[in-house]
């Protein structure tokens, strides 16, 4: 099927959900043959006809319920195997659900005593070409584990003042960036850039980016092909300010979209389009290169908590406190270069304030959702 907006040549997505396929030693396996019956048939380009509704497929039980935190669901989709791993934060621990073995919990680190165990703010699997790390952010700092959560690879403590300040201190906002970095936001607005070695624990703090004045909420890397000058990383904060960066040895600020006071809680970047979800329930699409607003959607009746993007199709997933999850389709008109967004599907998770929503495959045929007080992950 013709997908508007896709480039003529075969795409090489550097998607979060799969390893970047670039020039490199051949792995000796050749292109995988599509297995009939599985949902993931990316290599033949087959996708369900537009308008095919989603249906709830199954419900996975978590060990503990999910907390009301932005972007509170992380999904690890290994490219070859359908079984996935899920993670959702509950207070001071991360609830992990793997493809094998019983559900587990990872605690926050750095509490001085049992009484002051710090709260986790977010957790995310960061997929880099060389390795996958599981990153946790808390009121004390940043914890990085091997992908299965078994080994602590790195711990970075935030500067927590001796006497409690008027404003709380925490890290929040996690993304892999530029093929060898992991970026983590903080409540001061600073973004920490960590240089990740291909293996081992020698993680170093490469840079601290100080452009935000308000606590960082979310960070996202370009999941498609960035147009010229558009940057490959976007950071968002509590005031709604968005910063566009180009990654590398030194990160460069390419542009800043000033916020209006309305929190941007979740952000994605795809083919030079920033999709941002806000506390007033709006989704806005911005041109990353120029900072121009290209679309505004009155998407939800309450605070948006999660956005996710499927890079193969440009599908956008939004989840909010209003109990709704919406699927949209982003595209670009090749003639006018206008950005398009269409509504595809809505799901209502009854009596639940959705706090986490993620696609489980790069085409967006499957997604998972969790909500506050819900000890389950719903898979559609």
């Amino acid at each position, binding site marked *: 099927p013709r997908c508007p907006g896709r480039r003529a040549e075969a795409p090489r997505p550097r998607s979060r959900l799969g390893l970047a396929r670039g020039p490199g030693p051949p792995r000796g396996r050749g292109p995988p043959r599509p297995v009939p019956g599985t949902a993931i048939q990316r290599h033949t380009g087959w996708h369900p006809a537009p308008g095919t509704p989603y249906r709830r497929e199954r419900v996975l039980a978590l060990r503990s*319920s999910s907390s009301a935190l932005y972007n509170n669901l992380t999904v690890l989709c290994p490219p070859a195997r359908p079984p996935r791993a899920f993670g959702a934060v509950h*207070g001071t621990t991360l609830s992990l659900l793997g493809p094998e073995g019983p559900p587990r919990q990872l605690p926050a680190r750095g509490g001085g005593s049992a009484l002051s165990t710090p*709260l986790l703010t977010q957790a995310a699997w960061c997929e880099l070409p060389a390795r996958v790390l599981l990153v946790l952010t808390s009121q004390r700092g940043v914890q990085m584990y091997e992908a299965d959560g078994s080994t602590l690879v790195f711990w970075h403590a935030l500067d927590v003042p001796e006497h409690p300040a008027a404003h*709380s201190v925490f890290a929040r906002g996690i993304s892999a960036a530029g093929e060898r970095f992991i970026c983590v936001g903080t409540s001061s607005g600073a973004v920490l850039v960590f240089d990740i070695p291909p293996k081992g624990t020698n993680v170093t703090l490469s840079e601290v980016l100080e452009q935000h004045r308000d606590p960082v909420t979310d960070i996202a890397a370009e999941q498609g092909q960035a147009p010229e000058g558009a940057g490959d990383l976007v950071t968002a904060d509590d005031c709604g300010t968005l910063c566009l960066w180009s990654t590398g040895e030194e990160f460069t600020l390419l542009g800043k979209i000033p916020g209006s006071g309305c929190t941007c809680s979740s952000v994605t970047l795809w083919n030079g389009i920033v999709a941002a979800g806000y506390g*007033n329930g709006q989704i806005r699409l911005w041109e990353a290169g120029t900072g121009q607003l290209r679309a505004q959607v009155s998407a939800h009746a309450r605070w948006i908590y999660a956005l996710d993007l499927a890079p193969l199709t440009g599908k956008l997933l939004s989840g909010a406190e*209003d109990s709704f999850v919406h699927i949209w389709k982003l595209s670009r008109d090749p003639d006018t270069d206008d950005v398009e967004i269409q509504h595809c599907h809505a799901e209502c998770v*009854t009596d639940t304030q959705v706090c986490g929503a993620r696609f489980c495959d790069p085409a967006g045929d499957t997604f998972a959702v969790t909500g506050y007080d819900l000890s389950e992950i719903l898979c559609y």
Partner: protein
Amino acid sequence: QLYDLMTMAFKYQVLLCPRPRDILLVTFNHLDAIKDFIYESPGILNQVDETFRQLIETYNCLSDGEFQLIRQTLLIFFQDMHIRVSIFLKDKVQNSNGRFALPTSGPVPWGTEVPGLIRIFNHKGVEVKRTEFTTAGNYVTPQREGSFELYGDRVLKLGTNMYSVSRPVETHMAGSSKNLASRAKENTVPNPLAKEELNFLARLLGGLDIQKPAGGETGFRLNLFTTDEEEEHAAQTRPEDLSYKVINIEATQEPGRRAELSRILGELEVAEARPDSAGKGEDLLALMDGL
């Protein structure tokens, strides 16, 4: 049980706030209600007003994002609490599994638009297209914003008296033993007997002036025997030599009374005997009034 009731009501209010900033409006609703109780005591009223002013000074300037952080932190405290409260169950505010019902209809929060509109802009920022989408929700625009001033219409109903609406008497429900009994009054008309009981308690505490109606009937008296006839009979047949002496001990802080108390304690002797009075009912009340 009272703690559980308060906790679930608090959770309900925090969870259902349309905007995180509305937590402050809920707090102001609470304070407005408190001011209603104590409006006759200017001293206490001033203190509540001062609390109000400090809340305004501290919290009115916080951003929406900061309020959401406060709300998220509170929600962590309330996580996994699903105690069923009978008044919530009756009002269908809570499901039988203990989870709160989240409506997908009604006014959207102030500052949010009713979902449905998609606006597309060209590279010059000019709006070039509008489309609409529909969902199962049924939302409307709100009429006005609640007031964050010392006085004003809060608009929001969360945080107002849960029990102020009259509702039909609860019928027996299966599993009701697990519910909390809502012991407070369920309608606005005060129960006359309850009023008398409360007045009596107030008199005991010395907070209310004695207002005996002309006829001597106070509407409340204590029976030590099963029937009035038995009471009268017992009073008449009580042996003379079992006269009793009563000591009036005034426990208030008034200096005059304290002097009397000190005198009594110093002497360790019985004070003056009580004067005789007409009926035994008045005896007992007068005895308690004197406390």
